[in-house]
């Protein structure tokens, strides 16, 4: 399936892997329950020394995620990572009590996201024994060295500044910092961008992509659509999903950030150019 898996990687037999993934040196994917459903989608990068320990429950990674070196992922209840998620080096993602990381989430280096706390002796009366689902909503950005406690929910597009230690839920579109982390009122890290301007940006990036990576690319800019063509691969960029979808064409839809994927060479190459911090689209 066109995956690039280093020979030193050890991957459990019940792991279903899509295509065009990179799995680095000494990556360990351990499944302790053969009935656990474990799936890795397409175009993911799992870098060297990442350890994924699935004690129980299901484990799922969508498309176009990057998990950097030495990160530890543990699952017992479940651990779901959707699409376009970026996890920095030496991070910890704990799905013991259930962890969902939604589309486009960015997690800075050495951050930890927990869904359980359990170690004190019961015989001595320790009552700190929790396992609660933690949910990180779409497009949340947790900067480096952040700690997120068990059972926390962080709302859509919120940002945790460096070194935040979060013990309480955060609503959508907030910026938080400190220990214990609190919302910083007044900060606004996104400006409004009209759909028309988004189309112009996509057109500009298409032109830039052609000049840097793909001289043979044909670009056609019609009414409300940008069309990219390379040999038999075609991409349509449109504000709304066209009523007629042509099979084997890739569609990037601006209004809902969705894409209809084909995994063609042009789609993968163009998307690699976009997905770092220009534009991200999600595949359902």
């Amino acid at each position, binding site marked *: 399936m066109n995956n690039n898996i280093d020979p030193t990687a050890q991957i459990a037999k019940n792991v279903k892997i899509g295509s065009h993934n990179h799995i680095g040196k000494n990556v360990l994917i351990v499944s302790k329950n053969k009935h656990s459903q474990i799936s890795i989608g397409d175009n993911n990068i799992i870098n060297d020394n990442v350890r994924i320990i699935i004690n129980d429950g299901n484990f799922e990674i969508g498309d176009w995620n990057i998990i950097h070196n030495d990160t530890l992922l543990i699952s017992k209840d479940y651990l779901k990572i959707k699409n376009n998620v970026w996890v920095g080096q030496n991070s910890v993602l704990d799905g013991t009590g259930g962890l969902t990381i939604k589309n486009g989430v960015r997690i800075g280096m050495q951050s930890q996201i927990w869904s359980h706390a359990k170690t004190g002796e019961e015989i001595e009366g320790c009552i700190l024994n929790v396992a609660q689902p933690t949910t990180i909503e779409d497009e949340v950005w947790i900067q480096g060295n952040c700690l997120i406690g068990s059972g926390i929910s962080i709302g859509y597009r919120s940002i945790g500044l460096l070194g935040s230690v979060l013990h309480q839920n955060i609503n959508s579109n907030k*910026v938080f910092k400190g220990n214990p982390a609190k919302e*910083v*009122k*007044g*900060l*606004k*890290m*996104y*400006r*409004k961008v*009209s759909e028309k*301007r988004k189309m112009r940006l996509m057109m500009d990036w298409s032109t830039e992509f052609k000049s840097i990576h793909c001289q043979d690319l044909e670009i056609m800019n019609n009414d409300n659509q940008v069309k990219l063509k390379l040999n038999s691969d075609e991409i349509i960029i449109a504000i709304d999903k066209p009523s007629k979808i042509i099979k084997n064409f890739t569609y990037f839809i601006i209004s809902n950030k969705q894409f209809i994927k084909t995994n063609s060479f042009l789609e993968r190459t163009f998307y690699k150019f976009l997905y770092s911090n220009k534009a991200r689209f999600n595949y359902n």
Partner: protein
Amino acid sequence: MREKIQEIVFNSTKEFFENSDYELTTSIDNNLRLIGDSSPLDSMGLVSLIVEIEESINDDFDVELVLANEKAMSARTSPFINLETLIIFIEEELKIIS
């Protein structure tokens, strides 16, 4: 046009400080410093205020002005020194796109 821009900038600045954790100890006028030691803002506060002003300008003038752009960031004299320099910068930018 400058008077209209000034009104929008002052109102947005007032609203920003009323709804943020940033404390304003001086009045809102042309001399209000946006950068430097005497500014009440850090870099993130500055960006947030600029975005707030940008949105108000865009709504009122029905344009798509980007204030924190490459030109502004690389200008020899920053347009973000105080509210007066910002107002002059917005006026120039609006003239360019109109």
